[in-house]
């Protein structure tokens, strides 16, 4: 739950600088969240700023935003003077919605997207028993419309109290 950033031992100044820059990049599909908020930046490594390596992990295997994110990172870092950063894809451990930071969950809710209701380690999740609250009126009287929504990471819900349809960030 708390290993979202996985900062390695004693990050140097240039590594801190890269982390800060990555925190300024918005996710192309959910612009309210930064790449750090989403937990998809897995590491910033390298012996020096000239040979920096950034590890990204995809949320879903087929997420179309993955390529865009890669290009956004390259561009942003190049403009800040990191010309030859290697962007690496790290698959294991696979991304989990548990890596979405607590602050990001509040941002999602304010944006109208219900954050993941449970931790992935909760076995109840397998039975679809999550209590999803409406991000608009806070009612828990909601129902699942479809397991799939506007992007691979979201499901489609309806609040039966205020009748507002909304996206729910799936637990995976």
């Amino acid at each position: 739950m708390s290993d979202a950033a996985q900062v390695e031992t004693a990050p140097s100044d240039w590594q801190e600088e890269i982390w800060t820059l990555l925190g300024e990049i918005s996710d192309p599909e959910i612009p309210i969240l930064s790449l750090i908020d989403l937990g998809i930046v897995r590491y910033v490594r390298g012996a020096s700023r000239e040979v920096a390596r950034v590890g990204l992990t995809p949320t879903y295997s087929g997420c179309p935003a993955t390529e865009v994110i890669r290009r956004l990172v390259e561009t942003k870092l190049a403009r800040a003077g990191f010309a030859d950063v290697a962007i690496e894809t790290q698959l294991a451990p696979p991304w989990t919605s548990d890596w979405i930071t607590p602050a990001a969950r509040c941002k999602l809710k304010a944006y109208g997207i219900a954050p993941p209701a449970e931790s992935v380690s909760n076995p109840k999740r397998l039975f679809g028993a999550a209590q999803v609250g409406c991000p608009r009126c806070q009612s828990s009287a909601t129902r699942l419309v479809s397991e799939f929504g506007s992007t691979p990471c979201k499901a489609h819900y309806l609040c039966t109290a205020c009748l507002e349809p909304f996206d729910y960030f799936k637990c995976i």
Partner: protein
Amino acid sequence: MSASLAPALSEDPRLRYVLRLADTSLILGQRLSEWVGHAPALEEDLGLANIALDLIGQARLLLSYAAELEGRGRSEDELAFLRDAAQFLNLTLVEQPNGDFGHTLVRQLLVSAYQLELYTALQTCADPRLAEIAAKALKETQYHVRYSASWVVRLGDGTAESHARVQEALMQLWPFTTELFADDGVDAAMIAAAIAPDAAALRALWSARIDAVLAEATLTRPADAPFPWHGKRGVHTEHLGYMLAEMQFLQRAYPGAEW
């Protein structure tokens, strides 16, 4: 025919095993994407498109790995778009036409339940690359099973018309499930290498899951068919060729075209 476009596939069992997994996901993803704009409701259009996207994403990871194993400098795109039908090693079940919505969802359940058990086993297998891809794919597959099972139950235990249609789909598709558990030399080599799980154990898990859904859906499980089909050896039904003609048209007509 230019030999350089589609060189003969290596006999390396690991390459062939990875290609079977990759092609099964790719071909099913392509089939599902035929529904985009045609599903009975917007939510289901999105649902099928999302599953297609997951499958194509999984296929890309697997094809990239296959390309590395092959070591001939071919890319994932070249493997997807420049092989002919006889070099595709997907299960025969996934190339079958979509039929109606219920037919598509029955096929999806049969395949997704299989992938669920397979990826569960592969995530701890002796090939670390395959294990990490399986762990990733497993999370997505759990949603595919939930989605397809819920629709098969709704349609099977629905009206007389919907029940009759999904029962008929089950009868038509069931014979192709024999291949899922019909091990050949490639599977045997992968089992010996502690990579592939034992087919009998896999079949028991799959059967239990499918039986539970069929019972809730008030559907009758068809009798097993003796003939296994041989899609995973590159021997396909006629449907695959037509599908590839559409899927590969752009790269065949405009070689090397990019977005």
